[in-house]
């Protein structure tokens, strides 16, 4: 298909118009602010509105706060029992659907990920309250599994009927003694998207788990990897590279995580942030409370991976590590280069659209660039303005009713555990040498001018974009996959990776090149029309042998 579409030309303003024209005025006004043409204006960069309510009735890609909390952040923790307090559905839908891969069992940890646990609330519980049932359920879970920890998640009705899940958790924790029980008020109606759930989850993990580990970590070059979720084994590949480099990943938030890893996060000497959106506040809290500085990294893309490794080495500043990192990069790149050499002629010049998450719509452009593919339109499903425009805008963000409801916890330096890893002078020196701390420039600067950036893209706009801009590939989630493919455009899931992956690190990059090559060059999308649909005329006389 590619060929034909490379010729497609469009005027971004015209496209924005077309996207808006069908809407009722009020909707059009609102969406106009979330659809942005990436262009230089007189001495200002264009603003985009993000992290705002989805309009009722508009078919959105977004999920809820519970999904962000239970599904995204806590789902990957293998040895913490996730007990959902609510009607059965919420726990059923989050059951094994997020590809939370773990090898925790290899270190003798339990793996409860294949289990789906719920209080299965009934109408009587709604009427008379569900605390007793929750308590009983926690007890039964404890009696059957004897876990290290039990995490309780609230679904919509819980908040409304006023069950005090935190009190129940507290009571049971004290009762058990050897099992940490804590709860999350992550009712689905809170916030405007999964994003609120990430925040709620991370706050509770930080409050109830971080610092709870007795055992001291003594390895060198200890880091936390924040905002990496090990989808398709991304985290396995990144850890493989860290091990090779001699970097010790103490705690990933939260891919392939365990209770003890969370609990030890305070012992790291650096926080490396992958998904800025879902985790930057944890990075801040780790610094404030324990003195761990953070930098933004990205392991999506071979180049980005090399760059991120170098940043970490630069931070620790020891030649031994710097050399080893260079050696690893030198070892890994030939395979990557060979693969690019193979696929580049077939992929270069093709176009892609990416509408996912809070960072992938940005990170994956690295991989497409390496393949010579251009991302002509992109946007986040639950990003905030700073994810588009960079952290510079954070001070200017106004807190609206929806975000106000999401608890912000304020931490201070821990009397015992606070220990600044670097002196202000050292930090300054590193910054002088180009290592930026707490820095993220966002998506917009990395995209070409006149590309179209859309926040919280919806079903209708997606279809229109594809119709007008005819990309060779569209990237989003499962709900979008088949409506896009029906249009004859291959669709790649960048939430679940369509059961593929890993795509992070060096080997992941190679996997991705091959996968995209398969998608944009397969003949199977050329079979859409039958011969009689291409030549419908009846007149044809048949040619016999």
């Amino acid at each position, binding site marked *: 298909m590619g060929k034909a579409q490379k010729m497609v030309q469009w005027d971004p303003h015209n496209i924005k118009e077309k996207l808006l024209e069908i*809407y009722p005025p009020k909707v059009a006004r609102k969406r106009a602010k979330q659809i942005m043409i990436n262009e230089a204006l007189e001495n200002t960069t264009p603003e985009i509105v993000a992290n705002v*309510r989805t309009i*009722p*009735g*508009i078919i959105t890609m*977004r*999920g*809820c706060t*519970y*999904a962000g909390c239970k599904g995204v952040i806590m789902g990957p923790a293998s040895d913490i029992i996730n*007990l959902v307090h*609510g*009607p*059965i*559905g*919420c726990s*059923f*839908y*989050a*059951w094994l659907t997020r590809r939370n891969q773990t090898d925790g069992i290899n270190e003798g940890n*339990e*793996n409860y990920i*294949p*289990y*789906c646990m*719920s*209080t*299965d*609330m*009934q*109408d009587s*519980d*709604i009427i008379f309250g569900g605390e007793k049932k*929750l308590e*009983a*359920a926690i007890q*039964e879970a404890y*009696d*059957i*599994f004897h876990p290290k920890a039990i995490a309780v998640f609230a679904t*919509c*009705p819980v*908040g*409304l*009927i006023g069950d005090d899940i935190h009190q129940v958790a507290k009571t049971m924790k004290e009762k058990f003694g050897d099992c940490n029980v804590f709860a999350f008020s992550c*009712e*689905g*109606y*809170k916030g405007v998207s999964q994003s609120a759930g990430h925040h709620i989850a991370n706050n509770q993990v930080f409050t109830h788990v971080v610092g709870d580990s007795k055992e001291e970590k003594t390895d060198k070059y200890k880091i936390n990897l924040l905002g990496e979720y090990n989808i398709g084994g991304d985290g396995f590949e990144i850890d493989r590279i860290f091990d090779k480099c001699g970097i010790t990943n103490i705690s990933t938030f939260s891919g392939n995580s365990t209770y003890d890893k969370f609990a030890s996060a305070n012992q790291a000497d650096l926080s490396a942030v992958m998904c800025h959106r879902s985790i930057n506040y944890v990075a801040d809290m780790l610094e404030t409370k324990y003195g761990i500085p953070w930098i933004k990294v990205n392991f999506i893309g071979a180049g980005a991976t090399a760059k991120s490794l170098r940043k970490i080495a630069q931070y620790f500043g020891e030649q031994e590590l710097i050399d080893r990192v260079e050696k690893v990069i030198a070892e890994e790149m030939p395979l990557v280069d060979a693969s690019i050499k193979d696929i580049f002629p077939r992929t270069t010049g093709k176009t892609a659209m990416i509408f996912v998450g809070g960072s992938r719509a940005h990170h994956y452009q690295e991989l497409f660039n390496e393949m010579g593919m251009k991302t002509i339109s992109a946007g986040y499903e639950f990003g905030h303005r700073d994810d588009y425009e960079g952290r510079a805008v954070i001070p200017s963000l106004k807190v609206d009713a929806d975000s106000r409801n999401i608890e912000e916890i304020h931490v201070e330096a821990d009397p015992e555990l606070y220990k600044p890893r670097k002196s202000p002078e050292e930090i300054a020196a590193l910054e002088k040498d180009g290592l930026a701390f707490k820095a993220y420039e966002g998506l917009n600067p990395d995209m070409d001018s006149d590309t179209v950036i859309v926040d919280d893209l919806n079903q*209708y706009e997606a*279809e229109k974009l594809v119709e007008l801009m005819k990309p060779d590939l569209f990237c989003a989630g*499962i*709900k979008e*996959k088949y*409506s896009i*493919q*029906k*249009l*004859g455009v291959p669709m790649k899931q960048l939430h679940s990776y369509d059961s593929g992956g890993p795509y992070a690190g060096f080997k992941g990059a190679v996997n991705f090149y091959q996968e995209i090559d398969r998608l944009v060059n397969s003949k199977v999308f050329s079979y*859409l029309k039958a011969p009689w649909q291409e030549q419908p005329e009846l007149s044809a006389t048949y040619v016999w042998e």
Partner: protein
Amino acid sequence: MLLRHTPKEITERKALMINPAKTCQPIGAMYAALGIKGCLPHSHGSQGCCAYHRSTLTRHYKEPISAATSSFTEGASVFGGQANLVQAIDNIFTVYNPEVIAVHTTCLSETIGDDLPQIFDKAKKDKKVPEGKTLLGAPTPSYVGSHVTGFSNMVKAMAALAQPGEHKNGKINIIPGWVEPSDMEEIKRLADLVGAKTTMFPDTSGVLNGPMTGEYKMFPEGGTPIAEIKDSGNATGTLALGEWCSADAARLLDTKCKVPCSILDMPFGLQATDRFIDALRTIAGTSVPEEISVERGKLVDMITDMHQYVYGKKVALVGDPDQVIAMTEFLVSIDMCPVHIITGTPGKKFEKRIKELTKDMDCEVNVKAKGDMFLLHQWIKNEPVDLLIGNTYCKYIARDEDVPFVRWGFPILDRQGHQHFPTVCYKGGLRLLEQMLGVLLDRKDRDDEESKFELVL
């Protein structure tokens, strides 16, 4: 072991459900609504529900699933969802222009007590509902029953649209229950062959097993036209397939429109299909064409030919009540032994019916309604089986316990075929038998010692 922490020893649980064999009402309502022509299902709750239901249905069908949501915020949850729903209705008709919006509630909107009829009136008063368009709504509180209940409630809401008229339309209503698009197609094919004029609702065939053509249609050709649903009040009678899925709607047509009804088992397997076809031809006053008798005979032929390989085999079966009841009858009729039977949906009637169906079988039967797969797995650990039948989640048990496994039910997230090949009626029976024989004989071929390995089976 994937489920390494499941103990063999069974302890009673009063509060904790582990590895459910059910989900909540709204997804059933959404699936049913997709069986109305030109209908956009709408989830009145926070947007996560809608996202989860769409994702699950999409994974099951590998097809686009369109549905909208009221996107509740905290405010709406406190002050009520009327404003959200009215705005949603306006946006939906403006942007997507469906013929019908089928709204179902959620635990959220039910808990705060939103009243759909009243909100619909408001929407109409505010002129948000274009001429000739239809709104329908079903209360589907997630904390009551299961996804099956939600399906039933939405189908009942369809029946509520029916109007009693002066003259009968000479048609028979068929309420197929929660079966696959391919099954609905098959039921229609057989009804046509019998020569019965029928109205079937819902009908997801052509909606959820659509072709790849280069065009995307949010509202494909399939589905039951709303006019036909309204006309179902003038039918000769209603055949409801499945007590749990279809009876409420049928009885409503009876009480409201005086359309008599009969509740049959879902037509899985030989006998249930016999009863369905026989009912159809009796009501329609037609005679069953040879073609159907031949299809039936082919099923009997395979049953007798391959009887030795299924005879006495122990089966663990999990799924929804109507399906499991019919399947149990089928398994027993071919001399298999369903020994562990679970449905996640509540209903003592279920256990009673299963006990009746299995009473002549000479082995102990474990049966539980409102059960879960954790218990099923424990039962299997205590009494191993030769075959496991259930949805995709069963594959974790199948791999751990090394049991031959046939995927059947909802959801099937990891294999293809269910949307295209029916398992209802006689042809479906052939397919079920083929699949059961396939896994049983694959196991035999895998495990037979070399000296016993057979070419001919």
